[in-house]
């Protein structure tokens, strides 16, 4: 029927250019349909830009707002932290999120007593861009930030082209997500063959918070080949080696802290650890120094903010505490939460 219709359309509008145009439209549509089909068949995850959890433990007029990515979910037992501190915590975040995205999650978070931002050297690197960036940060804000911070042409281009690229993903949901396609296809094939999926997926966590399966295994269980492949994948996610910590992210963090201070909010910035395996392959000495310097400058500009560096804790520098290259497992979470509580208890906090 459709074929007949199409043929009759062709008979009306004849000529070689018409054929090419028809071909182009049909090819475009078939590619879009195929992309949607693959996304559906593989059970493509819709990347949620925002996940929210509320942990009320008392009747506080001013809640504590907590922001972080999946790194926070894996590294911190937020229920334990909330109960121990007697907080009423509202937790928000997004995948691979950074202050650049948190700033826009903060918009409806007025009247809070404290603000805790969890981040890491991985997320603060300007080369690493969250998949949620375009859905949270307005295009003009990105233009202004990249202009003001005088980012290099490559990085500016990468950030700004993400906007049209993400719009194209509405038409072709698999576009730019070939790694995800391959990992999910592999897991599907394994399932069809009756073999269990690997304990930790090469595609990273599914949720901002870990599942029981994810939190048990360790990076030390990985064979060297798998480790190397994942290191390569992590490097591909970043525009360059992690070395630049002065860009839209640091600028957004600055703005968040300034605005919070003006509304009489106590600011805490927690720097989470990433695995030694990740650091040794992705971050050189120069980058570590640049990150340290960026934090020192931040503290200078915001002397009343509390910056807690868990990334320098020797106890946490162990691949056995990590589920993958950047996410912690149950043992890592217990140790990190305990250390954070200890640091918080040693500090007089305003409520």
């Amino acid at each position, binding site marked *: 029927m459709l074929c007949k219709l199409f043929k009759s359309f062709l008979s009306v509008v004849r*000529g*070689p*250019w018409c*054929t*090419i145009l028809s*071909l*182009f439209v*049909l*090819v*475009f549509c*078939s*590619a*879009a349909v*195929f*992309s949607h089909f*693959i996304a559906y068949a593989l059970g493509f995850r819709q990347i949620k830009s925002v996940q929210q959890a509320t942990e009320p433990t008392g009747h506080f007029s001013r809640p504590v707002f907590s922001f972080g990515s999946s790194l926070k979910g894996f590294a911190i037992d937020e229920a334990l932290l909330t109960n121990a501190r007697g907080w009423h915590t509202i937790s928000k975040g997004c995948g691979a999120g950074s202050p650049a995205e948190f700033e826009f999650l903060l918009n409806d978070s007025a009247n809070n007593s404290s603000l805790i931002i969890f981040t890491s050297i991985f997320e603060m690197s300007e080369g690493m861009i969250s998949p949620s960036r375009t859905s949270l940060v307005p295009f003009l804000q990105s233009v202004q930030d990249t202009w003001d911070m005088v980012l290099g042409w490559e990085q500016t*281009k*990468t950030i700004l*082209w993400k906007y*049209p*690229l993400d719009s*194209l993903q509405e038409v*072709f949901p*698999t*576009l*730019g997500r*070939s790694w995800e*396609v*391959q990992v999910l296809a*592999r897991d599907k094939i394994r399932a069809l063959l009756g073999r269990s999926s690997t304990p930790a997926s090469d595609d990273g966590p599914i949720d901002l918070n870990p599942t029981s399966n994810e939190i048990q295994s360790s990076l030390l269980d990985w064979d*060297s*080949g*798998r480790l*190397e*492949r994942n*290191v*390569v*994948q992590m*490097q*591909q996610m970043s525009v360059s080696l992690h070395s630049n910590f002065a860009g839209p992210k640091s600028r957004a963090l600055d703005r968040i802290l300034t605005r919070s201070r003006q509304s009489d909010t106590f600011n805490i910035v927690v720097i989470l650890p990433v695995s030694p395996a990740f650091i040794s392959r992705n971050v050189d000495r120069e980058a570590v120094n640049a990150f340290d310097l960026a934090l020192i400058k931040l503290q200078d500009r915001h002397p009343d903010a509390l910056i807690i560096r868990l990334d320098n804790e020797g106890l946490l520098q162990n691949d056995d505490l990590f589920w993958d290259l950047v996410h912690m497992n149950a043992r890592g979470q217990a140790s990190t939460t305990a250390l954070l509580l200890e640091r918080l208890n040693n500090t007089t906090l305003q409520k």
Partner: protein
Amino acid sequence: MIFTSLEFLVFFGLVVAIRWPMQNQSLEKWFLLVASWLFYMSWNPPFVLLLLGITTSDYFIGKAIARSNKSSTRHLLMGASLSIDLGILAFFKYANFLTDQWRVILSLTGVEADPVFWEIILPAGISFFVFQSLSYTFDIYRGKLSPTNSWRDYSLFIAFFPQLVAGPIVRAADFLPQLGKRTRPQAALFESGLALFLLGAFKKAVLSDQIAPQVNLVFASPSQFDQITLIAALLGFAAQIYLDFSGYSDMAIGCARMMGYRFLDNFAMPYKSFSITEFWHRWHISLSTWLRDYVYISFGGSRHGTVRTYVNLLVTMLLGGLWHGASWNFVLWGGIHGAALCVHKVWCHLLNKNPSAPVQGFGAILFGWSLAFVVVVLAWIPFRCANFGEASQFFLGVVGFGNGTINTISPQLLAGLFILIMGQLMFSKNQSWDVEIPERPFWYRFAAYSFLAAMIVVFGVTQAVPFIYFQF
């Protein structure tokens, strides 16, 4: 601006759309020229001045050579063109390399020097447009070409954006006549260009860019990996460099065709060659013919006896290797190919055969293909490794004398190799898909293009991964 990037698609779409309704041919050419400069400026804006400088000097030198009747003046002018072009190339590409070699020579004589190394940024595509410009003056000098009277046309020949950054190295005799007549894109040519562009994008984004990270991982520290991983990575690189560069060439030729211009083919299934001589008739054809016409023949070619022929061949290939980059590794790569070509010539001479003649007989085909393939693949080791040390480590690992233990053969690498092998087995050496597919029925074309487009949107890498030959 890489061909597989969204920004190039937008740029190209705009160029085609704006040029389409233009009625004035002169305006059309100026428009393409300005678009080409803008394209080049997307890498590093100031270097467009270098492009303009080389273009202008060779344009006027070409005219002067044609006007001159005196042999000595023509020699002098040709020398000036060579000095300017090769001088610029030498400065940007080889200055630090030559300085370092000078330091090594001094240290061998007991003098410890501490020379200054400049921080030189290599202009994109310099090796390509310098060679293209040189071929113009050479052809006029040899009386094979009349100079163009239009600076604009000559500039467009050098700067035309589809071939500017990584070839194919277009000859003036092929391109300038196309600028003389008004070229309107024709539907059949446009479709054939689009088909070629799609095919190139598939090779680059779906195959080459998927293999690249896995290959890079192994080549970054070859001593860590076991024999089977090293062999897989080496075959992976052989696949990657072919898919990357032939994919780029397909896209370049496709873009030009969509605008109504024709470039000659740059690749023709090189890994199906039955001899090393045939490989060089099928690999980077625009460079190999350039080296033949302007280096090998300039040295005397085969006109001065057998030994001199082999020496000329070897020197040409060594220079061809050096053209790829300022490193002894590339010289070694060129040397291996040069030596293999000489051995093949000697072999054919002993058997009284023409080296370029087709190989006959199953045994000869199998033996010839295996030998040529092994030589070509092993020669990629020095080409890809950072230095001699790593190349020798890699080679020892491949032949089973390495100490590495890590085994990581990725599914992407296996899939890439599988597709490459199937491609070699399934398709004829002389099959030209871009010509064949547009001649097929509607449903066939729809299926073929849809397959390529679907693979690109599902398995394509969208991060802008530069083409390997951009660095040359």
